[in-house]
């Protein structure tokens, strides 16, 4: 004896952890988007620096702050085929250097020709940057020093070098955030990938035929059972096949019998010729009480079916709300 099957769309079995990985990605991304709100521009100008004559900017009051750092970005505006080695220095009130960083900047260009085609290439690496975090409040002076300025042959040039310099406070290091986004996206992708395979496999059977049966002890309240039928079919397959799924209880009493239409996806060779087809059916059930249940699958028309696989999992989680059929066995 059994009661009539009841089918309902439910979000009860969504995997919260999969959504948590997605939320992590969104969280870091939101931080990236909102990170510039902490930034305050202190200096943004172009200065000319003569080789070996350090150029000082106006002093800046540094404060110890919980978020961000003082960011000095410098772009050397040099002509093509020139090299410049410059140093960003920070000096304290007494004129002592307390930090410095060197950048070897260059801009090169040339022409190329290959198989009758030709063009001009340019490459450069001109931007230097230093992020510093103060350990106490103090006024500092930023100094830009040109250590070497030459053309590509190595001939020294004694001319001022123009630099675009920008100083901001409260700069957040977005490289960490990008790392977080990429890493969390990768984990979210993995979570999305494995969620359909969640749960414990109770039946995993495969035959080189169209009919397959299996039995196992499973079910119970709040236990989502996923019945997957994978069909491999040959090159003469129709566009869709019918899959009859029958579920019996421990007494052999039929609880469920339904024919599902399964669309096939065709595999093609490089020449566009159909070499075979795959079909997949996934159905969700709650089987009550926990007991022995039998699953029987018949694929029709069976002429083209090469292989049928039946996989039954319990304690499953889903990515999206799914149609769940509740079957109650009265024993």
């Amino acid at each position, binding site marked *: 004896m059994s009661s009539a099957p009841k089918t309902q769309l439910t979000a009860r079995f969504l995997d919260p*952890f*999969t959504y948590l990985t997605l939320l992590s990605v969104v969280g870091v991304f939101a*931080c990236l988007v909102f990170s510039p709100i902490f930034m305050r521009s202190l200096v943004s100008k172009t200065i000319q620096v003569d080789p070996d004559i350090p150029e000082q900017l106006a002093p800046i009051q540094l404060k110890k702050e919980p*978020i961000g750092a003082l960011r000095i970005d410098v772009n050397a505006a040099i002509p093509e085929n020139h090299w410049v080695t410059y140093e960003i220095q920070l000096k304290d009130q007494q*004129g002592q250097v307390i930090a*410095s960083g060197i950048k070897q900047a260059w801009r090169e260009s040339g022409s190329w020709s290959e198989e009758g085609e030709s063009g001009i290439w340019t490459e450069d690496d001109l931007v230097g940057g230093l992020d*510093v975090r103060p*350990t106490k409040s103090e006024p500092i002076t930023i100094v830009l020093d040109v250590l070497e300025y030459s053309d590509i042959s190595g001939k020294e040039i004694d001319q001022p070098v123009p630099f675009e310099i920008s100083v901001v406070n409260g700069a957040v290091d*977005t490289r960490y955030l990008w*790392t977080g986004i990429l890493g969390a996206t990768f984990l979210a992708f993995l979570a999305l990938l494995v969620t359909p395979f969640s749960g414990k496999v109770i039946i995993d059977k495969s035959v080189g035929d169209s009919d397959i049966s299996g039995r196992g002890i499973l079910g119970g309240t709040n236990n989502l059972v996923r019945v997957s039928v994978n069909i491999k079919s040959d090159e003469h397959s129709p566009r869709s096949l019918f899959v009859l799924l029958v579920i019996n209880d421990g007494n052999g009493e039929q609880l469920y019998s339904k024919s599902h239409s399964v669309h096939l996806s065709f595999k093609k060779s490089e020449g566009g010729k159909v070499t075979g087809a795959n079909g997949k059916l996934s159905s969700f059930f709650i089987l009550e009480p926990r007991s022995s249940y039998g699953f029987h699958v018949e694929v029709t028309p069976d002429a083209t079916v090469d292989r049928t696989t039946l996989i039954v999992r319990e304690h499953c989680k889903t990515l999206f709300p799914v149609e769940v059929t509740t079957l109650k066995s009265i024993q």
Partner: protein
Amino acid sequence: MTKLFALLAMLLAGTTIFYGFTQQSALVLRQEQQNNHWVRHDTRTSGSYRGGGWVASPTRQTYGGFRGGGPGAGK
């Protein structure tokens, strides 16, 4: 399995947000230990903080005009 991924993703998100916003990669002024310093735009520090002062690195010393002025010149 997804529990593990969620844990890792949240841990990664938390760490990267903390490190990014507190600028762990920045050069810490007046500190000898610079464990987390992460160079930006290939701009390498040309010295380090030793015994209360900034000491130029050997590569820096090969350039002329070292330290350029101030009481600390030529140190």
